């Protein structure tokens, strides 16, 4: 097979090339996720990758793990079931911005609130790519989409703040350009025993980029290179973080995990001989 060893070991190479458009950031983000799994040395049979519907949700189809492609917005609901049925599994959920925060928004906040041990990764390309470029809950104010021809008048979600506010115990943000950071965040997110949320800022040269005159894929990567600042740098010197996109590890605060708390109750009653 004409590819590197990581691709050979962790991808269903017979399914490649993937469906994503030329230059789509999802491929780069997915590679960061795969490298994180490889570095942690997880047993492939104990990894489950779950997705919903959308461009990002095609990802599990290309990966050689236990994979599940579910319905729109419901990836976290299916993942909750998998984790409950077999808490030993590493359940990784890949969703898009529309999938996770529009139709699946309620699943997101409640999975975070419960602190169930799922690793949630959102490939955020600021638009609904698969259906033709409609604006999503993360399309920036004033930006263009096929459904906001005069500029978007809705304010976007800050997904990381949303996840943290809902109770997520690990939160971070990387980008398709900051691929090594993305890998590190996913590694830590998988290791966190509880609900982990990593946002990967993607690039969509076909719809979001074209509608907003952001240039080609390389120029969109360069935008992230020049306009993102690590949260640690911004905390030391707020001037450096002014009007920039903050990236890095935002929150890490372990709390009792849902399936473990449930097991405690089971053990208590079994101990009583009930």
């Amino acid at each position, binding site marked *: 097979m004409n590819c590197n060893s990581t691709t050979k070991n962790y991808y269903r190479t017979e399914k490649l090339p993937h469906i994503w458009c030329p*230059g789509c950031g999802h491929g*780069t983000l997915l590679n960061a996720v795969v490298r994180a799994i490889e570095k942690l040395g997880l047993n492939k049979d104990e990894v489950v990758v779950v997705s919903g519907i959308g461009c990002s949700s095609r990802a599990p189809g290309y990966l050689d793990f236990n994979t599940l492609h579910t319905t729109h917005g419901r990836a976290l609901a299916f993942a909750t079931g998998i984790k409950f049925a077999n808490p030993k599994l590493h359940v990784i959920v890949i969703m898009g911005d529309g999938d996770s925060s529009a139709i699946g928004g309620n699943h997101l906040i409640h999975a975070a609130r419960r602190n169930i041990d799922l690793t949630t990764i959102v490939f955020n390309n600021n638009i609904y790519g698969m259906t033709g470029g409609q604006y999503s809950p993360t399309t920036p104010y004033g930006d263009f989409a096929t459904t906001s021809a005069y500029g978007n008048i809705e304010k976007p979600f800050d997904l990381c703040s949303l996840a943290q506010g809902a109770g997520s115990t690990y939160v971070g943000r990387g980008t398709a350009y900051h691929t090594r950071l993305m890998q590190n965040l996913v590694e830590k997110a998988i290791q966190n025993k509880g609900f982990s949320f990593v946002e990967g800022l993607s690039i969509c040269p076909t719809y979001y980029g074209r509608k907003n005159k952001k240039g080609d894929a390389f120029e969109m990567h360069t935008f992230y290179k020049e306009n993102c600042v690590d949260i640690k740098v911004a905390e030391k010197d707020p001037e450096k973080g002014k009007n920039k996109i903050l990236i890095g590890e935002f929150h890490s605060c372990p709390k009792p995990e849902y399936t473990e708390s449930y097991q405690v109750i089971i053990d208590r009653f079994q101990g009583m001989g009930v």
Partner: protein
Amino acid sequence: MADKALHLNKKWCKGCGVCVGFCPKQVLKIEDNKCVIAYPEKCIHCGQCELRCPDNAIYIGGRSDEQ
């Protein structure tokens, strides 16, 4: 270094040009909507193209690897 070589899987390449943009030695170019390793002798095997390619189509491997 001598045993390393740059490999390209043209079947997977979509010609997005990300590798061409990030290559610090201008080794690559786009021809007929596909990447081409135009100047392999200039390659320093830094791995930027492999890191950034969204299609896993370019990578640093051994000289004897399948082409």
